Every structure is written in structure tokens, then in C-alpha cells.
């Protein structure tokens, strides 16, 4: 059974990609993931803001009490060598390149035009095969309209595309009012692919302490449905863009669905964090069986078969069908304990 696929110019033996996560931090874990069957790995994002803050904080903390007191001109050692900034991140790309043969995809979240460009070049030079632009951004500024938000992303894509030779993909949030149109513009701007979708850290609140608490839940398969819809829509409309599903891929059936709606690859994180690298092998083997059982001879055959261009009834993708779906849904825990 041929599970091979292409993504961002890479020929991959299967569509299972390790998504952006701390999984890339440990070389041994990366090796185990490759052994388990991962086709590629995406680095966690290099956050320009974090690099900048870290530098500023280090500078401030080191300088805070310097030359203020007769007995001590400083209170911390002044090492001659220290690395602030992306050095460690870039070094990890190099280490992964050296340790495994699967492709490494860099991931970048910039905040300034020069940050996007400089770091993109550095990631390329460090040996990444492709680059995922994590355009993570909460549009909370009431003076900034939707056009401006989209324009900024498009400018980044154009600039980075011009600056690096490796393929680039854009990891999007689902919160665009005109995603199809925006995808067309990203396509025109030179994006080689899209990742659907980013899962944000959603803060929770503590009602007793009255505090906002950063929180991060692992994904569950229900999140896949949102991805399937947009994979179906965009893969039908923009065949030139290579799409990756991210969020809610937990088992082989999820992979099949994502591929059928048009995904070239699927990114897995939560399931791997939960079950370990061996889970990948399980999914791959099951995928193989499922594809076979469904009567395909190669995974590529099923790609996009259920997208907007080919599925028998597009209305389900295009319309809300809100009321009907809601009525048909029954809470399996309705008679059990409350959550």
C-alpha cells in the first residue's frame, strides 16, 4: 500500500507529520518518532517576541544593580559567552538534521518585518527543509480592520517568500471572515501551502481568585470537523496550495477524513503527547489497512475525493445546517455526572 504524499516540495512516505510542539526539543524523542514512522517534523515556533523579551529581560536583570553599591559593582557573573536569541533554536534544527533523515520544517512567529525576514533566513540556513509561518495574532485592536490584518499577513508571506528559497506554508487561525478569499490571496502571494488551523492557548479564569490562567488543553477528535470543512472548501478552490490538517488528528480514520477532504499531510501532536511515539506506528498501520479496506491502492487516490469540487453534496460544507445538527446531537453524558 502506497501511503506516500508530497508536501511543500517534499516527497514523504506517508502523511503523518509531527506538528509544532515541544516534541522537537528532545533528540531521542525525535529519533523515536522517526522510528515510529513520522514522515516529517515541524519545529515548535520560534517566537520573535519571546527572543526579544528574553533579551530585554536579561539585559535589564543583569544591569539592574550594577555600579550602585561600594562593596559590589555587580551581583551576577558576567560570562564571556552567552547566547540570547535564536541560537539554541537554530542549533536544534541542526541537531535534528544530523540525527534523523526525515525532513525538518521550521516554524516562525515574528512581530516585526525584519524579525520575520532575518529569522526566516536563519532557519533556512540552519537546514530546515521548509518553513511554516505561524501568523498567530489576536486582532484585539479596535482601530485595526480586517483588511489590515490580512494585508499584514500577505506582506509577510511575500517578503519571506522573496527572502528564502525553501517552500513556505502559512498556519492560519480559523477566525477570518472571508477565508476563501484570503486563501486565494495567500496563494497569489506565493504561499506553497496552508496549515489548517492553529490552536490557540485559550486562557481560563479562576472564579474564586479572580485571575486569568493561561491554559492549554490537548486537542480531541471533535476539533477535526472544523478542519474538514475548510480543507474541503479550500482544496477544491485552490489546488495549487498543499494543505495540512492540524488539530484533532488522533486516529487513522481522522487521517483518512483529512486526506479525503484534501489534506496532503496531517499534523499530530496531542495524540503523541498522550500516547507516545508508538501511537504513530499504530495510526500508520491502521491507516494502511483502512485505505486498503476502502478499496484504494494508494493514499493519493483518495486525496480530495470529498472536497467541494468532488463530493456529492456540497451543501453540508457550504451551509450552516445549524439547527438540524444541533437537534440531532445528544450529549452522551446527559444522564451521567456533570463535567
Amino acid at each position, binding site marked *: 500500500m502506497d501511503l506516500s504524499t508530497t508536501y511543500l516540495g517534499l516527497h514523504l512516505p506517508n502523511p503523518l507529520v509531527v506538528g509544532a510542539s515541544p516534541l522537537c526539543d528532545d533528540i531521542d524523542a525525535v529519533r523515536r518518532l522517526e522510528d515510529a514512522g513520522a514522515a516529517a517534523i515541524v519545529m515548535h515556533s520560534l517566537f520573535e517576541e519571546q527572543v*526579544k523579551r528574553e*533579551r530585554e529581560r536579561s539585559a535589564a536583570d543583569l*544591569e539592574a544593580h550594577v*555600579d550602585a553599591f561600594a*562593596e559590589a559593582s555587580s551581583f551576577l557573573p558576567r560570562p564571556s559567552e552567552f547566547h540570547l536569541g535564536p541560537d539554541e533554536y537554530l542549533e536544534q534544527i541542526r541537531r535534528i538534521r544530523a540525527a534523523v533523515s526525515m525532513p525538518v520544517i521550521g516554524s516562525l512567529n515574528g512581530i516585526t518585518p525584519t524579525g520575520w525576514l532575518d529569522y526566516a533566513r536563519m532557519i533556512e540556513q540552519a537546514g530546515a527543509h521548509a518553513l511554516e509561518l505561524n501568523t498567530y495574532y489576536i486582532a484585539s485592536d479596535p482601530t485595526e480592520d480586517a483588511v489590515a490584518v490580512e494585508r499584514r499577513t500577505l506582506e509577510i508571506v511575500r517578503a519571506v517568500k522573496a527572502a528564502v528559497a525553501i517552500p513556505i506554508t502559512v498556519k492560519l487561525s480559523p477566525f477570518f471572515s472571508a477565508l476563501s478569499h484570503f486563501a486565494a490571496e495567500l496563494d497569489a502571494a506565493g504561499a506553497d501551502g496552508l496549515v489548517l488551523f492553529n490552536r490557540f492557548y485559550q486562557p481560563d479564569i479562576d472564579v474564586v481568585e479572580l485571575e486569568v490562567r493561561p491554559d492549554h488543553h490537548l486537542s480531541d477528535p471533535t476539533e477535526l470537523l472544523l478542519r474538514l470543512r475548510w480543507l474541503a472548501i479550500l482544496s477544491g478552490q485552490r489546488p495549487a496550495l498543499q494543505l495540512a490538517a492540524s488539530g484533532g488528528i488522533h486516529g487513522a480514520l481522522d487521517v483518512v477524513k483529512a486526506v479525503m477532504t484534501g489534506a496532503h499531510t496531517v499534523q499530530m501532536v496531542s495524540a503523541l503527547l498522550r500516547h507516545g511515539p508508538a501511537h504513530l506506528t499504530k495510526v500508520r498501520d491502521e491507516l494502511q489497512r483502512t485505505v486498503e479496506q476502502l478499496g484504494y491502492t494508494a493514499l493519493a487516490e483518495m486525496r480530495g475525493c470529498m472536497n467541494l469540487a468532488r463530493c456529492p453534496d456540497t451543501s453540508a460544507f457550504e451551509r450552516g445546517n445549524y439547527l438540524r445538527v444541533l437537534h440531532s446531537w445528544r450529549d452522551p453524558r446527559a444522564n451521567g455526572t456533570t463535567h
Partner: protein
Amino acid sequence: MRTVDGNQGVASVAYRLSEVIAIYPITPSSSMGEHADEWAAAATPNLWGTIPQVAEMQSEGGAAAAVHGALQAGALATTFTASQGLLLMIPNMFKIAGELTPFVMHVSARTLATHALSIFGDHSDVMACRSTGFAMLCAGSVQEAQDFACIAHAATLRARVPFIHFFDGFRTSHEVAKIATLGDDDLRAMIDEHAVHAHREHALTPDRPVLRGSAQNPDTFFQAREAANSFYAACPEIVREEMARFGELTGRRYRPFDYTGHPDAERVIIMMGSGAKAAHELVDHLIARGERVGLLEVRLFRPFVAADFLAALPATVRAIAVLDRTKEPGAHGEPLFLDVVATLYEADRATRPRVIGGRYGLASKEFTPAMVAAVFAELAAERPRPRFTVGITDDVTHLSLPFDPEFDLEPPDVVRAVFYGLGADGTVGANKSSIKIIGEQTRQYAQGYFVYDSKKSGAVTVSHLRFGPRPIRSSYLIRQASFVAVHEWGFLDRYDVLALAAPGATLLLNAPYPAAEVWANLPRELQQTILDRKLRVFVIDALDVARRGGMNGRINMVMQTCFFALSGLFPRDEAIAHIKHELEKTYRKKGPEIIARNLAVVDDALAYLHELTIPDRVSSSRMLPPIVAAAAPDFVQRVTAVMLAGKGDSLPVSAFPVDGTWPTGTARWEKRNLAYQIPSWDERVCIQCNKCAMVCPHAAIRVKAYPPAALSGAPLTFKSIGLKAHGGDDRYTVQVAPEDCTGCGACVEVCPAKDRTNPRHKAIDMVPQAPLREAERTNFEFFLGLPEADRTIASIDVKGAQFLEPLFEYSGACAGCGETPYLKLMTQLFGDRALIANATGCSSIYGGNLPTTPYTTNRDGRGPAWANSLFEDNAEFGFGMRLGVDQHARHARDLLGGLAGQLGDELVTALVDAEQHGEVAIAAQRARVVELRRRLVTIGDLSARRLEAIADYLVRKSVWLVGGDGWAYDIGYGGLDHVLAQGRDVNILVLDTEVYSNTGGQQSKSTPLGAAAKFASAGKSVPKKDLGLLAMIYGNVYVAQVAYGAKDAQTVKAFAEADAWPGPSLIIAYSHCIAHGYDLNRGLAQQKLAVETGYWPLYRSDPRRAGAGESALQLDSNAPKGRLVDFARNETRFRLVEQQNPARFKELMARAQRGIGERYALYKHLAEPFDHGTPVTPPPEPTPDPKP
């Protein structure tokens, strides 16, 4: 040519000429060791291509022993020290010299602690080493210090006589100067490889075994001691030769005695050290006026060579003044004076000149050409004083020479600039950078000297910078400045900032006002001075410019740019270009954002710099406020206020206590107004938990509960609300001390009371200080007058303890200090009966550094009695206090027994048997003592008089041995361990910051695995010593580990239990510190994380529990939860390790994480109940063991 300070110049030479460097931090020598450690960490090789081993020891005694061992092993070794540290080396110095070992120790000479400690410079430490057999070579400037370091190393190798190379602490060790530096080739040319080889041949090795350190008897010791004589005889010639060789090599020629002045001088001053440079200036000046004067500078003080001395001294001399920078009370004269007298006495001269001896410059007291002029004037007198002092006013023994304070020699082509900065604003750093730029980019010579006050929060720094066309000899502070910059507006009210402004000088003010409003806001006195001296005044709102540029409170770049623009040293554009270049160099490693931000600020600054148009008359209605309030006691008015005004130099001898005994309770008179923001209390939101008061490091937020009647006459804005959970109608107030608060924000951080409709608002919010200052000052005064809590009914918990009056207040500790809340708590609980022995360190500096001190008294006049002996001896010192106090109590009980018949058995029995646990019992015993005194008056017996003198000791005293981890884990551990083993009732409080905080963050044995500290800059690879566990093993020691930010209730409990346990108690108190490298307003949150992650487990091990089938140990924190790395990454000390070497960080963190688990398992096991057999009872007062 480079600009370096004396310590760096010396360390650079010593490092390259050494293989083993054993050190221990002590001011002002610490930075020499730190440089060596940094160079070794950066793999910088020495002259022989290897990286020296740098080892931090547990004390200077340890460092001396370690170099002794290294020398025995044939290595080239060195060390750096000063003051008491040098004294700890003396035993080894006798050995090293006795064994004729080539060795140089570099000493930044500092005064010895006597009636007081002082970190500043004089020769009393090195003079205490005269009999060790070390040669003594003295440098008088930064250039000489570097050069003499080299000469000493070269000479010792050939002479086999070890050397103390010394130079003046601070004046030379910390002066930044442009000097010609010595390259490796210079050093190579100076070092005799044969001598190095000979030293190696002499090594102790099993391949050619010998024995050293034999014990000798009366038959041989004397002769064997004399056998070394020829080496001492040869040593001076070797020094002469090395000096000559050095002169050939560098053009800088020195001799064991250097004479300068008139060849036929009649009056000559003889001295050594930096003061000779000021004397040199005056001699040049007098010779130009035709006077026959001269200066003999002593370089090689030991071995003292009479022939060389006499050869250097003009034969014409008729009167000599010998100046010593030390004091030997009771001696016929100071050391150099006595040597000179003896030498002249033995000299074969026709006429013997008159010799007088004087002391100058103790503890860095200024020594100026004016004082030298006074000495020459004295020499010209018909009957000069045989002994004198100069630089002070001695109105008691009348030894001091009068001098003209206005006398100034400085030539007009030297730019003299003085900068008043706030400790943390970067002023000193910017000035060091200016010196570097000007010194290294131009032909000008440059000198910088920096004066700091003794406070750790809101400290004032005064930078003295000179730039001139010739090498700068002026070894004293600027007295007439052509440029004065005041970087902090508040200083205008507190210091005479224009005192040093020369007529026509430029004044640069950082003003929080638009330029047009600045003049009107100046006090009248300043306006007058500006007019009188015709100053040009420039102003800038630097904070505003810095904030615009995202630089927070760092105004240094702004002010430095303005200085360059106004100084006239460069054309403006060139000046800006230089600053930018230096800036890029400095911040290269710190990232492009930081550079860009600084560059932008430099570009912006000049646009906001304005010259004031000075009106022709004074117009301000504002007068300078008084330094201290009118209500301050007489001593504070006469003495403290003068010191606070920065005019302590003017106080005469008679102003001072004769023995270093000072009144307590003076900090309250120093209103520093440091905080831009202070807490404001919303009584409606407050839940009255008192946590704000508990965590305040400065006792600047307080709580009281009081009857409503006490509110009569309350100021209008005074806030008060009904006391919760009380039942009565008592009132409750949280009050800030607006002028004492440092604005750290700890109270706001800890406040749990949020307005539930707007949780951003808490019961305490920080608000701008200035608009509230007046009203809150009045409110605070009223608050202080409210009744204090009745100690006998106060509950001993977090809330109750905070109603008790703190007897430790407004210290000079850092804003947000993690140590002081413990001390404050201790004084609230036991302060009225506490004796404190305080080890040298942060707590002795904020606890006892003048002008004002924080320990204070209650309304009865009782309060903590505090003393600092040394660093290393504190446990024994406090133990001695316990013995003394107990002896008084024992004697008092004996006397009571004898007088029982007259006093009444009932009273005597009650006094003797009083249990004295808790405030009720203490109060009852105090009442009995009052009654006892009443009855004693009527008894005309000697024993009654004796009992009167010591009756107060019948009330139980609480003896506290306080210090940091440097003391408890390292230098004082031996003593601490011994005191624990004695079983006596002492309470040891270790304020554990996990580094030597006071000297600048050097590692101690408390430094945790994985943290970077000085001398462990790559991250410590050995775990922290478990001091608590070691103490628990004794079985009769109460041990608690506490962290008030994590569990304040446990902290309070531990203090109460420690005091109650009649044996030894040890409290190890987590103290967040600026040396951890984060904003201390997060200190409490970090304490919580420290405890949660198991980094800092909380426990109490109480011997009273053991024996009841329970374990003594009780864990007070839960099983470790979460990752240590999440705690560690919040602190620069850990992050630095990651930034240097992420893999090492990961490995160390993994080990540390494992260590947490293992330790918890061990503690848990120890805390399990088991049968101890016989219960541990409090020890009875021990009787002395019979001595063998």
C-alpha cells in the same frame, strides 16, 4: 593605553603569572578574584599557556592554606585579599615566609574593624603583617599597582621571599585610570624562567621526597630561624634590579625609595600609597614658588633598607614629617615613623633632622594638597607638634593640624566633572563608559572615582571624573568642578549638590518639569548659588526621554549624551558617534533590539536638552527642607543630621562616642522619599489579614487595632474601619509611612483582597507618592501615636504578630529585600528582650551602617541590642552573649537566695521559679523585677546593690545569632556547628540568599545545583549543603526551614517555637535577593514556586516532639509538584547557565530535579513516627566539664 581600575590592572598581571589562584571575597579586593574567575571561565591562558585553576575557599584562612599547599606542590600561586581577610591569612603567611617560598599576594589595603567596621582604605591591615617575614611593596596609583604586581612576581621568584603587594583600597583599587598596560611579552621579559624552574625543583614530591614543617626544640629553632637571613639581605637588591629591568622595558622607572622635590630640600614628607600623589602635586607647586621641599615615597617598605633610604633623602633636610595611614594606639609612633627615626638615629650624619609623625587618611578619609600644605607648614614651625593628625578636627586631644579647605591646586586645563546619580540609574556605568571613550579614543588622560553611600535601596552615587592633557595624579575627590550633573531631582533637597560647582561651571539637571518651570521649582538657596557663581544651567526630563525610548528608568544614556554634548571635549557629532560606537560594543551580546533602543535614545536626547535663561534674581518661595525633623533627639540633630547632609567630614572628634557605642532608633529620622509610588489602602475592600505588614521589608506599612476614642483629633484623611471578627467596637487601620516606603510593591503582591466587581483594584494599590506625601506623613504621625497592642493578649500568628510594634524599621536594605521581613518579625515577637549578634554581611550593613540604623525601641525604651563582631566568629560571639547573660541571671538568682529573708520568700521564689514562656509570663516577671527593685532600695547591703545592677537579667533574654549563608555555610560553619553542639539557648537565624550577597553574589556552599554565581559562572555542579539536616542529627537542636512568601503562618510558628526551645535553634530562612536576578516584586511568587516544586521544602524539627512516639521532624509543605525548571527560568542566576550552555543547563536541572525527589523521600522517611526510646528533654544549664 587602556582605562582600567586598579584591581583589574593588578589581577591581569597576577592571573597571567599564576597557576593556582585561591580566593575568598572581601571588599575591596573581591573584583580581583572575580576577574580571575571570569578569565579562567573564558579559558584565558596564563603566560605558560595553561588556564590557571581558580578556587574559592570557605574563608581567607582557607585561601591562604590552599595557596600554601599549591606553593609546596611547586605551583605558582597568588591570592587577593584585604582587611580582616588578611588577618586570617597571617598564620599561613608566617609559614610561607619561613619556608622561603616565592609568592605574591595582592592586597587592596583596607582598614581593620575596631570600634566599627569600615570597608574603606588605609594601611592598618598590611601593617599588622609586618612581622610575618613578607616583603612589602606599596603602589600609589593604578599604573603603579599594575607595574608593581609584575615587579613583585618577578622579584619573589628570584628572592624566595614572599611579597605583599599592596595599594590603597578604593582610592587605587577602584579608581579607573588610563594606563599603559603590560603585554604578555613585557611579562615574559620580566620573569626569570630559571627561577620558575628552581621553584618547581623545590616542590614537595614523592619523586624526590623531603619533609617540611618539622617541630624543632630549643636546641635548634633559633639558629634555623636565623638561617634565612641572607635571603632577606639579598631581597632589596633583587627588587632594585627588577625595577631597573622594568624601567628599561617600559620607560617607567621606580626605586625602593623615590625622592621628588628640591635637591637641597629642607623640609621633606615621607609616606607611601596614593596619598603621596597628592603630596607630589603640592611639592611641585611649592617648588615652583621657590620653596625647598621634597617628598620621599616609600615603595619597598619591607625589607626596609636603611642605606637606600638615606641615599634617597637629601642631605640638606632639616625637618621630616612621616605620614602613616594607620593607627597603633599606645605605640610610640606609627610604623613608618618608627623606622625612619631608627634609621636616622643610626645614620652617620653630621646633623640629625627633626622628625615628626602624623596619621592621615584612615578609612579613605580624604587626603588633599591642602593637608599636605598643612604638614609642610607645621614642619616650618619653630616647635612642630611631634605627633599629629591631618584631615580631621581633633578638638579632644588637639592633635590635628588646621588646613585650608578652600585651597585648590587643579590646573584649568583639566576638565573636572561631578555626577550625582541614583544607585540603579546607570550613572556610574555611563561614566565608566565616558572614561573609556575619552581615555581610549583621544590623547587625553582620564580618571574616574566613584563614591557610594551605604544604602542598598535608593543609594546615591557621586562620580568624580577628570580629563586632562597630562597623567592625572590627583588622588582625591574633585573640589572645584567645571561640570556638575544632578541625575535625580530629589537630591536637590537632600544634598548640597552645588557645593563643588566652580564659578562659571555648567550644571546639568534631570528635572521632572518642562524647562520653563524648572527655575520656579528650585529651592531659594540653589537659585542664589546659581546666581552667585554664575552657573550655566541645562535641563532635561531624562526619565521622559528614556521612557519614550522604552528604556524604563534607565536614564544613563540620555545623561551621558548630554554630558558629551556639553563637556566641550569633542565636537558634538564626534561625541555622539563615539557614544554610539561604544554602545554597540557594550551591548553586542545583548541583542539588536537593545542596541537599537539605546541608539534611538542617544539620537533623541539632545532635542530635549534646554539651556535655562537665568533670571537676575531669586524668585522661589521654596526653602530647603530641614535634614531631620525638629523633634529629633539632640544627638541626631548634632551628629546624624550632619552625616545625612553629606558633611560628616566636618564633625570633630568630640562629636563621637569613644568606643563605637551608638544610639539605636535613628533610621526613623532619615526621610528618604525614595518611592515614586506608595501603597494606598481601600478599607472597604480590605479583609484585615495583615499580610501587607508581614511582608513589608521596611516596616513602612503597618497595622493597628485600637479603641474608637483614640481617633479623636485624627487628621481628616486618616482612614479607619471597624475591626473585623472582634465583636467590640474597636477600629482598624492600615497605614503607610510615605517617606520611608521604597515602593517595592510587595504589599500589593501579597494582598489577597480584590474588589470583586473590579479585581484590578485591590485593598492596596500603588499610587503616586508626591500628591499624597504631605497628608500621609501627617496620617502616619498620628498612627504612630495610637495605642500599641497589648502584648499579653496578642495572638502569636501572622495577624496577631503584625499588631505588635516592629523594632526594626526603614533599613537601607534593597527595595523588596527578602531578608528583612524575618528580622522585623523577630523584633515584633521578641525585640524587647533580644540581643543580636550579627555576622558581617548584608544584614550587618543595613543593620548597622551609619548614618542611621534601623533597630529601635518601644515606648518603654526596650528594644534589640545589636552588635557585629566579625564575619567568621558570629556564632561564637552570640554564644558568648548567651553565656554572659546566663551568668548574670545565675548571679542574680544567687543573690536573691541570699537576700530572701529581706525580700520575702514569696517574691524570691516567684522570681527564681518563673517559667517565662509567652508574653503573659514575661510581663509578670517584669512586674516582679519592678517590685524587687522597689524592695531593694530599702536594703542597705552590698549584695542588694549588686542585684540592682543585674536584676533585669531575671527576665528571660532571647539571644539571636543572625547572618547570611556565607557565614553559616562557609566561613562561620565551624563555629556554628560547635555552638549547636553546646546545647545552649541560642537562636540562629540564617538569612539564606544562597550567595554572598553583600560582596556581589559569589557562590557559597548554599548556592544550589545549577545556579550561576560568581566563581560558579558556568552553573554550580555540586548540590547545596543541607545545613538543616546536619543540625537535626544532633537531636537536641530545633531546626526549621521557612519561606514567609510561601507559608507565613509556618514562619511565625517557627520563630515562636525557636525562642521557646531552651536549647539551640536554627531557622533557615529563604531570602530572595537581587543576586537572583529578577524584579523582587515577584519575590513572594517565587517563594511559593520554590516551595511548591520542592526546591525549598518547609519543615520544623522540634526535639520536644520526639520521644512522644512522634518524629521530631514535621514536613510543612506538600510533596513536590511541578517542574523545577519553571521556577528556575524565572531567575537570571539559572537562566545564565542556559544562555551559556543549554545542554549543561538541561543536565544540571535534571540532576537537581532528581535531587528534589530524593531529598523529599528522605525527609518523608525521617518524618515518619518512630519510637525514640527516651524522650529528648530540654538541656539543663550545663556545668563546665572538668578540663583535662
